[in-house]
């Protein structure tokens, strides 16, 4: 158990911080803990968590994805056209939205791998393209989503918020198995040392492509879920989500230099970030002071993760972190 904690120190710290914040939130919330409060909270968290997962797949292979928010905006506007129906049409719409996300990720991946351009440059450019497309589709917010379906995805099942069930599915049904495959291992290997991965016989281009494609898919999922929560299409959501997704992965202990961290950490980071925001809302602090306090809490949360640097007795070890 102690070993398990030590090996997953970053995730453990993020989860502990999250639990503490959530407790404070529920205690200070005027309506206390209820399914309603939890559902609202979980929905907001899941949108950012999916965006953070998209960012995670770029960061883990030593990249960064500035187009996460843009892919969300594009998929959200697409969703506002194709998710109004029911039955087969609705299912097809969901598939189409996710395919759009996947395609965006593949475009990023192709440009990074075969264009040999830095991810930050590629995604800066494609982000503009994706947002441009979204604006062409929806110059002003609008459109609609099948309400029954949206409710099913954003309310609760037997008192458990659907968003938390989806989160658990992603972690246990997708991430845990993926981590045990050659692809999962390859992601970390490339991020940690691309040369060593190549010399070990890893198919670096394939895995890097797959990583960006998965990133696009999850950004698409984030856009889709955003559609369920807001039941409308809005091309203007991109910048906010891109930056918050980066903040979330850092909070969750994913190293921006690549190769370190996990999807669980990224999810925890997103939940922390959203919980801090929600805390502020009910804190009674004057609105103008809220960003300041929010920043302080954020800084403190990050500092906890780095606190064990004080125990290092060999000054060289500081640089390995």
């Amino acid at each position, binding site marked *: 158990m102690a070993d398990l904690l030590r090996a997953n120190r970053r995730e453990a710290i993020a989860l502990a911080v999250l639990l503490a914040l959530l407790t404070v939130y529920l205690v200070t919330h005027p309506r206390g803990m209820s399914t309603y409060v939890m559902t609202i909270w979980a929905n907001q968290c899941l949108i950012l968590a999916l965006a953070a997962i998209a960012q995670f797949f770029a960061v883990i292979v030593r990249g960064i994805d500035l187009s996460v928010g843009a892919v969300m905006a594009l998929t959200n506007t697409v969703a506002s056209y194709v998710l109004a129906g029911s039955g087969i049409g609705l299912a097809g719409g969901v598939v189409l939205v996710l395919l759009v996300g996947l395609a965006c990720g593949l475009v990023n991946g192709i440009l990074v791998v075969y264009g040999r351009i830095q991810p930050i440059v590629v995604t800066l450019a494609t982000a503009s393209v994706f947002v441009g497309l979204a604006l062409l589709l929806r110059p002003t917010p609008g459109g609609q989503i099948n309400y029954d379906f949206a409710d099913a995805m954003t309310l609760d099942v037997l008192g458990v918020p659907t968003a938390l069930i989806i989160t658990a599915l992603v972690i246990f049904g997708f991430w845990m198995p993926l981590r045990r495959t050659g*692809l999962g291992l390859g992601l970390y290997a490339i991020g940690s040392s691309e040369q060593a991965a190549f010399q*070990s016989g890893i198919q670096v281009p394939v895995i890097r492509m797959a990583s960006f494609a998965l990133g696009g898919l999850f950004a698409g999922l984030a856009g889709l879920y955003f559609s369920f929560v807001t039941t409308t299409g809005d091309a203007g959501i991109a910048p906010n989500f891109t930056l918050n997704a980066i903040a979330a992965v850092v909070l969750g202990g994913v190293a921006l230099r690549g190769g370190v961290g996990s999807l669980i950490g990224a999810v925890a980071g997103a939940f922390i970030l959203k919980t801090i925001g929600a805390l502020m809302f009910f804190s009674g602090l004057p609105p103008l002071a809220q960003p300041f306090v929010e920043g302080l809490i954020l800084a403190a949360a990050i500092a906890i993760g780095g606190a064990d640097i004080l125990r290092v007795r060999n000054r060289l070890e500081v640089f390995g972190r």
Partner: protein
Amino acid sequence: MARTLTTPDVSGLTVQPGALSCSRADFFLSNRGFTVNQTDDVIVRLEGVSKHYGATTALDGVDFACKAGEIHAVLGENGAGKSTLMKLISGVIQPSDGRIFVDGEETPLPTPRAAVERGLVCMFQELSLVPDLSVRENLMLGAPGSGLGRLPGAIVRRAQEVLAQIDGGGIGMGARVADLSLAERQQVEIAKAFARNPRLLILDEATSALNASVVDKVFTLIRAECARGVGVLFISHRFHEIEALADRISIFRNGALVDSFANGAHDYPAIISRMVGQKITDLFPAKPRARPEAQEVLRIDDFGWNGELTDVSITLRKGCITGLGGLDGQGQAAVLQGLFGLLKKTEGGIVLAGQPITLNSPGDAKNPDIGIALVPEDRKTEALILQQSIAANMELAAVGVRGINAEDPALYQPYTDALELKCESLDQPVSQLSGGNQQKVALTKWLALEPRCLLLADPTRGIDVKTKTQIYALLRRLADQGTAILLLSTDYEEFIHLCDETHIFYDGRVVRHLTGDAVTAENILAATLNIPAQQAAHG
């Protein structure tokens, strides 16, 4: 001579791994006079292979063959083309010219994966381990048969068996590779290569960080593999290793195959002169008479740290080269770090010229009032910034030091001249230099400060013979000029022939202090294993 190695065309001849034989007698008969028998089991053959990097020619029209059941040592100075050869055969780089045949069929090797699938497994000099992954994950990484899906667990068990045989049984499978010592990483690298069921095993400086007893065990393993019919290609700079292991020796110089002969056909001086193209009389400079009464420069008293070092007392004297030996990770490296201000909460005292001092950072240590310099062990990550130019790297230590103009090239020239640094210009990035020349830059960087006390962590690891002699000569000259030198080494010949006295570490303590005639290979080996000395050899 070189071109006589061309083998007859054996295309169409496929060799099954199980059907290979390893008869030493056959081998020696067939190789006398450099004619290659038609039935030889050639695994890989290069024909007229060249490799150019821009204007630099790393390999020039080389014909070369590796056979099953043969240990083939490749010798040459750094930059002679050995590593380029290994990288070509293991698919890391592509030849600019020429053809590569595997089992007699022309086979391009576009990636390391393609090479591994054909049984050509390389253990790289630049370790191919991923630092942030665990040992287990590294062993599975890119293993034959693994793709994007399920990972092969069997390879981990095979690797564990190999590790157990080379004193690496204590390495935890869950440990992060970045937390392992250099020697442990090399052991894992060896296990990783062996576990991939090689038909041709390529070892590029495979044992450079390992101590003698582990090296012996690795060699036993290599011989066993060879007896099973595996071919081995072997690069090492330690002559006694090559003598102990190789069946056949090929010598490279300036990107060309100079000579290829059976082990034993030529003696050391002959081999060395073929390698350097000129005669090197002695590896080590003449050792002056011991000066035990020389003026004390630096002393540590009852030095301790974090349970890894206990009660270590060492005195460095003016003009003396003091050796630090022992198995890996016995605390000797911590002594160097402690003396360079890298350790927090050390016990005991450091006394410089009679004055107690405290060191809180390398900045303190290099301060001219103190004058301590450390050339660290890993030149690629700790000593140099590879992407930066030679000039920028050399200036780095001198920047900010009182009374020194770091940008003055005259500061560095005497040392680059003495070491014969080979480069196109000082604006060339350090990454383009060979390992030996990189080490020369790392040394110059610190020598320019004219330190009173020079700390060296294995400065000749993986370095060619010629550079070694240059470094040894320079160290002796610095000592003669009054510098106190503390030399950590894994090569015991350096203690015998270069150092004036040697401290051997075991489990964080100095177990033997050898001086004068007591510095013998037997005494050093016994002390490193913490076995009481057989004879009364206390100096």
